[in-house]
């Protein structure tokens, strides 16, 4: 289990304007003849500068909600506004653009491109954003430096440790200055010491004014956040500050 950071270090920062507004969202999946209600009417507001954990056992709709928040998927019914854009009505390429500009993804399995070095991996969202090469290199290098990988810029993923890989992934999530950072079990593939380091990095990012959403099933990880949303059977069971 990852130890929890000392309570006195965990100041709650004032929140900013509304970023995400979800109202009565449902999601149905059809598996053969069976219809699965992954979400049964979820409402949630997330403001800038929040540090939020989404928890729940498997089958609770946690992953579905995360995909929805990440604009990877659209709701079957209900309202989803991201910075006042109606996400529910968007088509594929519009969703791709909003993911590119507004959301930084951090995956449990890092999902780095194996044949590209750290710099190229971090540059990828900037390529999709149409940023010219010179600016791309510059920004990617700065972000890699800021996550402590100054000496690893030209290393490929297989030349990096797990923690370093996750730092590259976090740099990639940060590089396009997104509105939210969405992390799915970010310490799930790391040993506990490295996990602590990554959670400390998240803490720094929060202090710097980023908005973080961490999806996890580990209580100890969730307790790093300032607010915990618990899901069960496609509904929000509880939503409140970490006590």
């Amino acid at each position, binding site marked *: 289990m990852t130890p929890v950071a000392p309570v006195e270090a965990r100041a709650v920062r004032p929140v900013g304007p509304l970023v995400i507004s979800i109202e009565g969202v449902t999601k149905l999946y059809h598996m053969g003849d069976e219809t699965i209600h992954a979400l049964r009417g979820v409402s949630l507001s997330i403001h800038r500068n929040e540090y939020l954990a989404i928890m729940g056992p498997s089958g609770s709709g946690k992953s579905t909600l995360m995909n929805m928040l990440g604009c990877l998927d659209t709701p079957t019914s209900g309202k989803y506004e991201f910075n006042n854009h109606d996400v529910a009505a968007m088509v*594929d390429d519009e969703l791709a653009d909003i993911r590119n500009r507004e959301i930084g993804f951090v995956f449990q399995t890092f999902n780095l*491109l194996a044949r590209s070095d750290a710099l190229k991996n971090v540059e990828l969202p900037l390529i999709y954003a149409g940023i010219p090469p010179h600016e791309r290199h510059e920004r990617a290098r700065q972000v890699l430096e800021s996550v402590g990988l100054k000496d690893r810029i030209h290393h490929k993923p297989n030349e990096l440790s797990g923690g370093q890989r996750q730092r590259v992934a976090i740099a990639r999530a940060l590089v396009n200055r997104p509105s939210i950072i969405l992390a799915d079990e970010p310490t799930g593939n790391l040993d506990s010491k490295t996990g602590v380091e990554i959670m400390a990095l998240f803490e720094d990012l929060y202090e710097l004014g980023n908005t973080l959403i961490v999806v996890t099933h580990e209580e100890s990880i969730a307790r790093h956040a300032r607010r915990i949303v618990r899901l069960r059977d496609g509904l929000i069971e509880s939503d409140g500050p970490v006590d």
Partner: protein
Amino acid sequence: MDRLAYEITESLRIAMAQIRANKMRSALTALGVIIGIVAVTLMGTAIRGIDIGFDRSLSMLGDDVIYVQKWPWNQVDDWWNYVNRPPMRPQDAVALNAVIAATPNSELEVAVFCDARQSTVKANGASVSGVFTRGTTADYGRIVSTDFEEGRMFSESESESARQVCNLGYDVAHALFPGRSAIGGTITVQGQPFTVIGVLAKQGSFLGLFSFDNYMLMPLGAYRKYFGIRDENTELQVKIRDKTRVPEARDELIGAMRRVRGMVPGERDNFSINEGQAFKKQLDPIKQGIAFAGLFVTGLSLFVGAIGIMNITFVSVRERTKEIGTRKALGARRRTILLQFLIEAVAICAVGGFAGLGLTYGLCAVVKSAMPSFPLVFSVSLVFTSMFVAIMTGIVSGFVPALGASRLDPVVALRYE
């Protein structure tokens, strides 16, 4: 627009990295394309070569010469209508020239009588067999499409006095008088000596098979004296003034010949007018048939190569499903993913096409050095055409798997292991 350019650059980089990372697989896939491209381009060079060979052989016949003969060049079913026609005779040429001279603004220039046979020509202990030996008059010098390499045509008086002089085709001259001038040399045909007074310039061969330079010309008087004129093969060769006005010349020639033969209106022509341009039209469908069949068969091998590309692209999409999901999560649009896999397929095809082209070039060079006159024609247009074909192969065969990749649901793709 910048964004698209960056995406393409990135896709190219990834494609190259991908090919490098899967060297064996890419090489085998490219091999399919290489074989296809080599087959198609070799066929292309051969078709072009045959084309050029046909054209050259037809210009040998002379595109400004019309032939008056007993038989037409095309196959006839009613041979009985032709067999009793009178043969061409030397006096027909004389009479025809008189008619031409009497016609104001005639389309025709001169008519010459010819007869020909195969004979064996000897000199200095060497001999050349199957030489196309043509007996004709001095006027033939005005018709022949070849220049003289050295010497001259025999004269009117040499022709009429049956002097034993001759002109040799390039191959005959160089076979009998290797490394030195044939002029003034003596050759024998059926034991009769002839003095060489002219050698004609090289014309080459048809498809590297039949030489156009294996012939000799001799005065008609001598030819008649020693070999006799065989009526079946005699012909009048008529040179026209303007080769763009073949139909008009042809019509005039028919009228003139009917006067020479003293034919009454309504009577059927008892001669055939043959000319190269009409003959060429008959050959065109044959050439097209060869080209179509050849390209179809070789195209099949390229098709197999294309299937290989499609297969490898499917495999690549399958292997990298998770990567596709990641890229989509990071903001790749459908177009971006489509381009990425399409560029990969095209890159393998382009590499294959390039290698295939190099191989074809090498094979052409080998064939050229082994058989100098075989008409394989490697051209710049061939380079562009085959690269175009290779790239189109990549686009067409990569499109379906690439489209599938671009339409993947990012949630499903990210979950793929």
